């Protein structure tokens, strides 16, 4: 590490209507350094990074690049000055290809006359894109449409895009929240090599273990203020939690063994060709069934089939011994199934609408008198869940698009937790959620289970799966490769089942 910071800010403040997002924050990063930026949801992390990347304008304070004061006028400006950012909420154009997204605005051109006509050299663009995709270990091809990709692959495309700028400072806003272990390790290798090349990396995450694996220094924000900056080897997870939350958390995973009752959902031979093959399982009342597997194993797709979001090619679903016909989410909800999707921005929320409207959408029809909504009752419920999950919002009327990423996730959870289903399917429920709220969500899950709800939890975080599940269903390449009891579930066992395909194919 050298003693000249490459990027330095002094006394940065930024307010939004109703929120002071940052107050008088100092921050710096040195070449060859990896800084982890931590803080609760809504602490101001993304806002600070967006200011550094030229996406937001600061209200006051100074920014220095190589000791020269600088005003970033636009994201493009910051980019040309060597700062690139991976946004927390994806910034890809869904209707364009992977390659076009990576090279937006700087597409390689044909030589000769083609250059004059600004003709894009597609082959070259796809070749270069493929190179970047290989680096990040994405399983997509450059001509794939973004909108057809699962969240994890989109995240990898974002990372590939940011790396392709050859920047001196690379900001990663929760890059691992959508990734599995393998992709995360791969990303860490990339971060290490960036570091060795003398570049600076700023890394935001809510997974505290990662911090110790990758960061040299840790900076903590709370309520828009700087709480502290410590070398990573001088602190511990508990130390970080009390810096972030202002108190210590006694127990993260609040798993209570609840009475497991009758079968509430039985699934037989669920199939959607090419993605989900012959999936069968039973879910009991009060049970938390973890869905584990690698990215792309077909867990999300299975959930979407159960919820009627996609048409199935075969298979049967019983709820409470009856066989409801489920052809749409509407049917599924009526049958008592709720589904928290993993992609909050596109599937979970209507960003333009208020916190209140988003929360009550699936349940509002139960709160009508003579056709009119009971506004007071709806507000009451919405406010109750906002309090429970500690959603930071100036009011229930705030549009969801103005909430921080983690707070948006809490709104999606609130929306479905209040729907009182028989079966609750959670797809990466704690994605991007801070430690305090995480333990609150685990407590809520336990409580729901105790109340007799059957819960399916899809998660790429093995510790979460291991701590919360009564049984773990493992998938690989669209098939169920194993269903493991809580006592026997260990990281090794799950990983063995999750990579079953190699041996299975060998014998087939």
């Amino acid at each position: 590490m050298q003693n000249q910071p490459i990027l330095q800010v002094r006394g940065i403040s930024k307010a939004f209507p109703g929120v002071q997002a940052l107050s008088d924050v100092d921050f710096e990063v040195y070449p060859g350094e990896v800084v982890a930026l931590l803080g609760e949801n809504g602490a101001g992390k993304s806002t600070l990074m967006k200011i550094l990347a030229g996406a937001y304008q600061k209200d006051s304070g100074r920014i220095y690049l190589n000791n020269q004061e600088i005003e970033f006028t636009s994201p493009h400006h910051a980019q040309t000055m060597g700062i690139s950012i991976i946004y927390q909420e994806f910034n890809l154009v869904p209707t364009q290809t992977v390659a076009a997204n990576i090279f937006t605005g700087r597409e390689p051109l044909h030589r000769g006359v083609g250059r004059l006509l600004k003709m894009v050299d597609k082959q070259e663009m796809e070749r270069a894109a493929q190179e970047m995709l290989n680096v990040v270990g994405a399983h997509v091809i450059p001509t794939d449409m973004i909108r057809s990709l699962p969240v994890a692959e989109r995240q990898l495309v974002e990372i590939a895009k940011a790396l392709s700028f050859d920047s001196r400072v690379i900001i990663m806003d929760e890059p691992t929240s959508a990734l599995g272990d393998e992709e995360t390790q791969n990303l860490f290798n990339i971060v290490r090599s960036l570091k060795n090349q003398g570049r600076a990396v700023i890394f935001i995450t809510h997974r505290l273990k990662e911090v110790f694996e990758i960061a040299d220094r840790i900076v903590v924000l709370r309520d828009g203020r700087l709480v502290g900056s410590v070398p990573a080897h001088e602190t511990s997870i508990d130390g970080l939690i009390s810096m972030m939350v202002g108190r210590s958390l006694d127990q993260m995973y609040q798993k209570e063994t609840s009475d497991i009752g009758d079968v509430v959902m039985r699934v037989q031979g669920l199939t959607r060709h090419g993605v989900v093959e012959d999936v069968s399982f039973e879910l009991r009342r009060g049970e938390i069934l973890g869905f584990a597997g690698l990215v792309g194993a077909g867990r999300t797709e299975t959930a979407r089939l159960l919820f009627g979001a996609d048409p199935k090619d075969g298979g049967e679903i019983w709820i409470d011994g009856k066989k409801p016909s489920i052809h749409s989410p509407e049917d599924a909800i009526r049958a008592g199934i709720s589904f928290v999707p993993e992609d909050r921005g596109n599937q979970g929320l209507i960003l333009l609408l208020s916190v209140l409207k988003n929360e009550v959408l699936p349940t509002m029809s139960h709160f009508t008198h003579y056709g009119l909504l009971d506004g007071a009752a709806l507000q009451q419920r919405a406010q109750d869940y906002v309090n429970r999950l500690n959603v930071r919002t100036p009011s229930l009327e705030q549009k969801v698009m103005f909430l921080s990423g983690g707070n948006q996730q809490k709104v999606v959870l609130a929306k479905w937790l209040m729907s009182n289903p028989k079966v609750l399917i959670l797809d990466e429920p704690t994605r991007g959620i801070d430690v305090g709220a995480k333990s609150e969500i685990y407590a809520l899950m336990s409580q729901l289970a105790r109340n007799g709800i059957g819960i399916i939890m899809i998660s790429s975080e093995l510790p979460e799966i291991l701590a919360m599940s009564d049984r773990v269903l493992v998938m690989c390449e669209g098939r169920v490769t194993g269903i493991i009891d809580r006592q026997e579930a260990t990281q090794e066992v799950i990983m063995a089942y999750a990579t079953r395909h190699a041996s299975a194919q060998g014998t087939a």
Partner: protein
Amino acid sequence: MSDITAPPRPANAPARFHWRRIIRGQEVGIFLVLVGMILFFSLSTDRFLTSINLTNIMLNFSWTAIAAFGMTMVIISAGIDLSVGSVMALAGIATAMLLARDNSPFAGPDGSVPDAVIPLAVLAGLAVGALCGLVNGLLITLARLPPFIATLGMLQIARGIVYGWSQGWPVQNLPGNFMVLGRQNIPVGSFNFPLPTVIMLVVGIIAWIFLTRTAWGYRIFAVGGNEQAARLSGISVMRTKLMIYTISGLLGGAGGVLLTARLGVAAPTAAQGYELDVIAAVVVGGTSLSGGEGSILGTLIGAAIMGVLRTGLNLIGVEAYWLPSAQGIIIIGAITLDQWFRRRQGKSAGFARLFSRGGR
């Protein structure tokens, strides 16, 4: 599970009614434009602020406003309905055909039509409008046509039916008791409210309650804001869209019937180009073409702005030829100002969405 699903209700439940919500920042911008225009015309001519003139203005934008309330819902759902002008004409003709002296199937031996037919004819007009809207909705949801294309087709089809049915002739000689609908004034104090205006206000209040206080209204906003997320929230996008376009057709039909009652004749060229006036009222009223945002109150103000402009220019002696240019300037000016008012919220306009595929 009571402690999770039915939290105890604290004594101080939040109030349901907030003035702030009615006059939100949203509508303030264009409301100021309206006030500014009224001030300008009042200062320019003393013939503007007379009760006769105000009555006239209100009357003149009543049918536009009624149709625009339906259009507001359509545009909030990120759609568009280009057919409303033709639908107004078709509903007007349908009603007139049932009421015209000598030509009505209900005409007596002396050619006169009994008054009892009037409600039936009005209902028929409304039904024709609703039917056109329903067909639009089916084309958009089942045939998955973009709303722009489906309703452009309906614009032509309905107009063609109007011409073919009437053979190009205006349908006239309507019963006096029918024309009352468009011509009656309701005195409130010393001021005369035209009946169409009263009807418009009643429809507006119902539409406002519908949009902001019912589950259907929430669904319309949800579908317009993000169709995929709406579907995953258990909303039937198809049913919601069918309803929206049917309402738009119904309200277009209502506007057409009132217009016919006012004019006393259903001309085949009636309401030609009205779709643009209606859309203008909605967008001037602050409803976003990219969907998910908008309000009935805004549309009412938008329609009023266009009405005030038309009459005001006339009164200060601007030739009618120039009116379209003035309307264009007001549309552009009002929306520019409106965007300036909410710059910090920033959301791109979404013409592209209008051409994208419809869906369930």
